[in-house]
Structures are given as structure tokens and as C-alpha cells.
């Protein structure tokens, strides 16, 4: 908790060309008065320069779409794993968890090799004669989405699986006995019952994806404007610590409602389990 207070403090202070590069917030004025100088310039700056607002909006858009794509791929997988026979189920789960244990950086790097101009995908497509010129895939938004969906997929599958595993499949059989079509039964029974799993999994993808830095930096190219990257550049390249702190605070304010939502979903889920 303490670190966040300090970020808040520094986001209010002036840029100073010193080490560390910010001015103290509290200053002794005269002898006994402690003056607090709040500097809102950093925030004003964030709101006037369209770069930052644009980056925020873009991050939310990217995170939201990636979450939807993860759901599209992850839900059928979690469902299939939950309905598999126990022995197969454990093996499949292990396969989902395994990439999660290998370095994120290396997995993102693997996509560079696949997507670049003389990369694996282009070479295969060229030799099959499907395309005649290499496609530009690396350093595009497409590459960034692929990277994010790829990296966060296990985070969505695991909570969703944990939720679906507890489901009573006899409900589905009952529905089919009563004349429901499979899709209808899925829509009316499985989907509502797995609501908490969907929410928890989506939050685990959405929240970190908003602030993601590594994937846009490596796959997204120079135009991939994500707020995590802006923060990183402000901090490391421009050495503008107060601006970076202000970005962090705004990001935090944006994400706290989602985190609390996640908490309450988790609480509901564990209360339902007992």
C-alpha cells in the first residue's frame, strides 16, 4: 500500500533536473509552517496532450477485444477439458499450464520468428503458392493482438475450467430430455451457470492487458500506443518521473473498479463452493 501513496505524492510534484528527478512536495516555508505544494500540472498535461488520452482509449480497446478473443478460443477449450475423461483431463490441464510456466518474453519472441517478413508463416504460405509476396504481419496491431491473446489464454482457461468442472451435467441431460436443442441448452443452462468463471477469467485477462508493456513493445511496432508503453517511455527515456507517476495513478483509478469487481466475483465463487 505504501508504494502507491508515494506514487501519488510524486505525481503531484514538479519535474526537477536532479537525481531523483522530482522536487519535494513538502517544503519548510519560514520556520514553523510546512507548506504542501500540490502541483496539478502533470495531470493537466495528460489531459491536454491527446497522446495520453489516445493511449488510454487504445489500451482499453485492445484489452477488451483481446479478452473477447480469449473467450472465443478459451471457452470451448475449458468446456471440452471439463467434459473430458478424468485421465485425459489432467493431461490437457497440464498442457494448458505448461506455457504459463515458460517465460513470457520467450513466448512473445517465438511469434517474432513466426510473423516476420521471412518468418515461418510467410515461408510456408509462399512455398504453398497461396501468396506471392510476404505479408507484413510483424509490427502491426494484428501481431499485438495475437501476442496478447496467446499470452493470456491460460489465465482465462484455468478459472473457467475450475468453474465448469463443478457443474452438474445432469441439468443438460434433463434439458435435452425436455426437448431443448443442444445450443439452446447451452445458452440457457451452461452459460448462466458459468457466469462467475467467465467474469473471473475475463478480469484476469483484461486488467493486466490494459497495462501490458512487453507485448506491444516487441510485436506492436512504433505505432502501437499502449498506456503501459507510454509510462515506460516517460520513465526510462524522458526521465519524467512525475508524469509517469500521474499516468500510473490514472491507470490505477481506471482499473480499481475492475479489481473490486474481480474480488467480489471471487468471493461469490468461493461462497458458492462451500
Amino acid at each position, binding site marked *: 500500500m505504501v*508504494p502507491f501513496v*508515494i*506514487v501519488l505524492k*510524486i505525481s503531484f510534484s514538479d519535474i526537477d533536473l536532479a537525481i*531523483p528527478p522530482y522536487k519535494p512536495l513538502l517544503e519548510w516555508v519560514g520556520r514553523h509552517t510546512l507548506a504542501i505544494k500540490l502541483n496539478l500540472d502533470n495531470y493537466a498535461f495528460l489531459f491536454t496532450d491527446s497522446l495520453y488520452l489516445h493511449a488510454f482509449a487504445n489500451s482499453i480497446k485492445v484489452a477488451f477485444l483481446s479478452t473477447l478473443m480469449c473467450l472465443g*478460443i*478459451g471457452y*470451448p*477449450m475449458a468446456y471440452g*477439458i471439463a*467434459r473430458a475423461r478424468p485421465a485425459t483431463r489432467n493431461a*490437457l490441464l*497440464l*498442457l494448458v*499450464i*505448461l*506455457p504459463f*510456466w*515458460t*517465460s*513470457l*518474453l*520467450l*513466448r*512473445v*519472441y*517465438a511469434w517474432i*520468428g*513466426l510473423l*516476420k517478413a*521471412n518468418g515461418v508463416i510467410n515461408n510456408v504460405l509462399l512455398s504453398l503458392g497461396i501468396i506471392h509476396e510476404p505479408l507484413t504481419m510483424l509490427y502491426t496491431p494484428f501481431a499485438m493482438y495475437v501476442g496478447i491473446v*496467446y499470452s493470456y*489464454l*491460460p489465465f482465462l482457461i484455468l478459472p473457467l475450467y475450475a468453474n465448469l468442472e463443478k457443474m452438474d451435467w445432469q441439468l443438460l441431460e434433463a434439458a435435452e430430455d425436455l426437448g431443448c436443442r*443442444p445450443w439452446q441448452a*447451452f445458452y440457457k443452462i451452461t452459460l448462466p451457470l458459468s457466469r462467475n468463471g467467465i467474469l473471473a477469467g475475463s*478480469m*484476469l485477462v483484461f*486488467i*493486466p492487458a490494459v*497495462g501490458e*508493456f*512487453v507485448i506491444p513493445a*516487441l510485436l506492436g511496432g512504433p505505432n502501437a500506443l499502449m498506456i*503501459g508503453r507510454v509510462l*515506460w517511455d516517460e*520513465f*526510462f527515456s524522458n526521465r519524467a*518521473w512525475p508524469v509517469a*507517476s500521474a499516468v*500510473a495513478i490514472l*491507470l*490505477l483509478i481506471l*482499473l480499481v473498479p475492475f*479489481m*473490486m469487481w*474481480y*474480488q467480489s466475483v*471471487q468471493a461469490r465463487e*468461493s461462497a458458492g463452493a462451500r
Partner: protein
Amino acid sequence: MNYRSSFFILTCIAFGFAFLYIPILSMVVFSFNASKLVTVWDSAHSPTLKWYYALLSNEEILDAAWISLKVAVINASGAVILGTLAGFGLARFSQFRGRFTLNAMTTAPLVMPEVITGLSLLLLFVALEQLIGWPAGRGITTMTIGHMTFSMAYVTVIVNSRLASFDTALEEAAMDLGARPFKIFFVITLPIIFPAILSGWLLAFTLSWDDLVISSFTSGPGSSTLPMVVFSKVRLGVSPEINVLATLTLAVVTTMIVGVSIWMARRAKLDRRPVI
């Protein structure tokens, strides 16, 4: 399940796993490629182990790996101790003031974007240095503390969920037989939750070993970890040595995970007790 929907599900699973594993497998295959153009297969000279030798004689990478190893081991051990205590407190003392806050605070780092955690930790270290003169400068110590703050959250969650299904009657029986709380913890509780602690340790180790963002914020000059070196190399383009590194990492991780899960499955069978 009828035939059509099961076919659909099977296709999805196959597609999903292909999506998860093709990139990884392509790295493994191309680590044996002779060409310096990583993704162009040089069939005349491949497969070869030449990049494996190159990696093992690359001082920069070896130094970084050594630093990463030190940080990861210290971090994992510290995170396991703190995380077990926190998980124990959360599971056992169900009603105390600030329980909700402690719960929220331990789980917040799980979803917090890393850039925020990293920046906050760095500013905390800088502020502490100005106030009390410690930590003097940044380096391995600050990095380890930084890793501990987020990896202990994972340990807490694992230990807490294991303790939730713990039969407290065992502890009560020991207490009836005259064991002191301290002894009960070490003789009864600890051995039973040991699998959870082991998975917590492994997870904390991996998180630290892989971490780039928090390390970059909290490290100082001369203490670059392996991910930091890899990141700066990858930014400049692909390099065959990174493929080798990825293959080696994958081999170690796979052996470890498969070994541990077989061990746990066997243990669970012996004990007839659910393991997390």
C-alpha cells in the same frame, strides 16, 4: 454430448493447443538451424548444435543467468515463508478486523499491471533511501524485495486454498494429546500442506526468473537479469541464441512440471487426500 457438438469442441481444443504450441515448437526446431537467419532452414548444415556452444560461451548471458538464479532462489524462499504465514492467517482467523483489506491487498498484485507495481516499488526505494539511507542504491537486494512483494501473493492464494480443505480435527487431536501449537504446526500442518508450499516455491521461482518489467524498474547498474538481457537482444531482432535459450528453458520447465505432478499424483494416491 451429441456427435455434432463434440466434434465442434474437439476442433476447438485442437485449434487452441495448436495455437499454444506451434510457436514454442518452432523455437525448438530452429534452435538446431545452422543459418544465422533464424527462420530460414539451412538444410545443408542442419541440424547442428553450434548455437548451443555459442550460448554456453556467451559471458553476458551466463552472468545474467547467474544473477537471475540468485534472485529467484532468494525470492522464492522468502515468498514462501511470507506467503505461508499470510495464507495461514487468512484461512484460520476468519473474523478479524482488516481481513477483507488483507485479502484484497494480497490478491491485488495478481492482477495489477506490472508497470504500476514496478514504478511504485522504485519510488518507494528512492524515498526510503532519502529518508533512512537504506537501501543504498539499487541492485540485487531491491530487485529481490520487489519480486517478493508480488510472488508472495501467489503463494498466499495457493496455501490459502489448500488450507480451506484442511481437516482441523487432526490439529485438535494433536492438541488433545498434549502437543504444543508450535509442534503441531511443524509435525501436522506443515507436512500436510507441503505440496502447496512446494508448488508455491516453484511458482515464485518461475515468476522471478521470468520477470522483466519489475526487474527493470528496481534493478541498478551492473545487475541485469536474464530477461533484461534477452529483451534488449530481441529488440534488435531475432538471434539464434535466444532460440537455444528458449529450448533449454522449456526442457527444464517441462521436466520439472511433469516430475512434480507425477510425484503429487502418487502422493495423493497414497494419502487418498485431495492435493490442490
